[in-house]
């Protein structure tokens, strides 16, 4: 099988991740932050190591600001509902995933509204100015995806972060497609809340994510419960991470995520793998651009403009049919709308969706050459 659905979740996971999960099941089976016995303490140490590693990677000063979540969607919901539970306005982009649009829509009954601004990857300054122009006196959140999961295009987070800082508005970034792929500096980019999954560019297990909080704004809670601290109080603790981390953590996944971070570091750190994937994808892009009957929707792979993923359709076939034919040839890709309808509106593919091809560290040119051959065959005989 050639697996190219890495924007949904990376596969395979590096041996370090598999080993770390297994070790956690064997050696770190106690509940961290609850008991005081040896295994509870050593498990808590492993969890804290992962907090430190994430804080270091994303330039967050205090590792206590690293909150473990179920996934990126959970982290985004915590930010959106934690800031807008009693109304207000948000500025988002037209590349957002449903994990941003749906929580905002659900809050409409509480008086929440939002403005969606268009991202132009070739004009970052103009994109940031569109965000600035969308700000209202009631704006309480600017939230943007760092890279579109459909188009791969980047949002100019540093420029937008400067605007957010100037207007004293909390700034959140959805790093679902960029964490582990593009460098992110929470301090320099002025990011107050950074949301990410463990299982994509960080190569960790599924069922785990993180919300990194700079401590500039306090979120109200989505979930309250046991934290292992201040147990006599009926109120949720105010300190992070306990405020936002009720209930038992997914320790095996957190250990696996830490394994992924160590592995990523050994590969040369963030950006190195993405460069290699971008080069591979560039060759495929050129081949497909010269193949009659294939429509490409993503820009030519270039890390300054987009993350390494390619979206296309073949002839007038529904994307699901093309994906099924690739699957018959042993190639796994994702088709459809990728839970981001506004990005499809942008490229006019709402009715048939698009085929997304996303490599990982384990993808070779042989894999992509096979994709090119099969797509060419489909284009010739739709």
């Amino acid at each position: 099988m050639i697996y190219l659905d890495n924007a949904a979740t990376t596969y395979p996971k590096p041996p370090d991740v598999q080993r770390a999960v297994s070790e956690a099941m064997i050696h770190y089976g106690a509940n961290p932050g609850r008991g005081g016995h040896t295994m509870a303490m050593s498990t808590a140490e492993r969890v804290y190591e992962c907090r430190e590693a994430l804080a270091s990677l994303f330039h967050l000063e205090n590792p206590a600001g690293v909150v473990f979540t179920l996934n990126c969607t959970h982290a985004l919901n915590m930010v959106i509902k934690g800031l807008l539970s009693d109304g207000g306005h948000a500025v988002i982009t037209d590349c957002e995933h449903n994990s941003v649009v749906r929580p905002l829509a659900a809050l409409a009954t509480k008086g929440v509204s939002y403005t969606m601004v268009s991202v132009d990857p070739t004009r970052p300054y103009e994109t940031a100015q569109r965000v600035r122009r969308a700000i209202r006196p009631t704006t309480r959140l600017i939230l943007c995806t760092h890279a579109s999961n459909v188009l791969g295009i980047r949002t100019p987070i540093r420029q937008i972060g400067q605007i957010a800082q100037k207007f004293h508005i909390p700034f959140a970034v959805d790093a679902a497609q960029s964490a582990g792929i593009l460098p992110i500096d929470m301090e320099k980019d002025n990011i107050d809340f950074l949301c990410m999954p463990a299982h994509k560019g960080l190569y960790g297990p599924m069922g785990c994510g993180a919300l990194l909080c700079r401590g500039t704004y306090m979120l109200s809670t989505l979930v309250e419960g046991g934290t292992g601290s201040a147990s006599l109080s009926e109120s949720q603790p105010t300190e992070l991470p306990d405020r936002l981390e009720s209930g038992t953590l997914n320790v095996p996944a957190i250990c696996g995520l830490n394994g992924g971070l160590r592995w990523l570091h050994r590969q040369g750190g963030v950006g190195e793998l993405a460069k290699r994937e971008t080069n591979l994808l560039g060759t495929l892009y050129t081949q497909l651009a010269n193949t009659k009957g294939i429509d490409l929707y993503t820009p030519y792979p270039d890390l300054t403009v987009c993350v390494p993923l390619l979206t296309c359709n073949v002839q007038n076939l529904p994307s699901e049919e093309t994906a099924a034919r690739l699957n018959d040839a042993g190639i796994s890709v994702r088709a459809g709308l990728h839970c981001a309808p506004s990005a499809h509106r942008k490229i006019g593919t709402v009715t048939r969706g698009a085929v997304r091809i996303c490599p990982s560290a384990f993808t070779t040119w042989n894999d992509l050459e096979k994709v090119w051959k099969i797509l060419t065959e489909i284009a010739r005989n739709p």
Partner: protein
Amino acid sequence: MNWTTVYVSSVTNAMRGKKVLEQQGYRVYMQRSSHAEENNGCGYSLLVYGTEQAVKAALSKSGIRMIRVEHGGGRR
């Protein structure tokens, strides 16, 4: 040199404090503590081989909130 016990609210704060102090050469043990009055119940404490004043200063500098600091060591 004396032992100092520092009470903090959570395991994360305790881990953070332990790292900070160890980086500065202190010998530190972490343990679970119930300090009901000050922390509304469960928390953690750090048993540090160092003077109260120096330990307090090191943790304050790193922004670690201490619930209580007392001279002397708990059990190990």
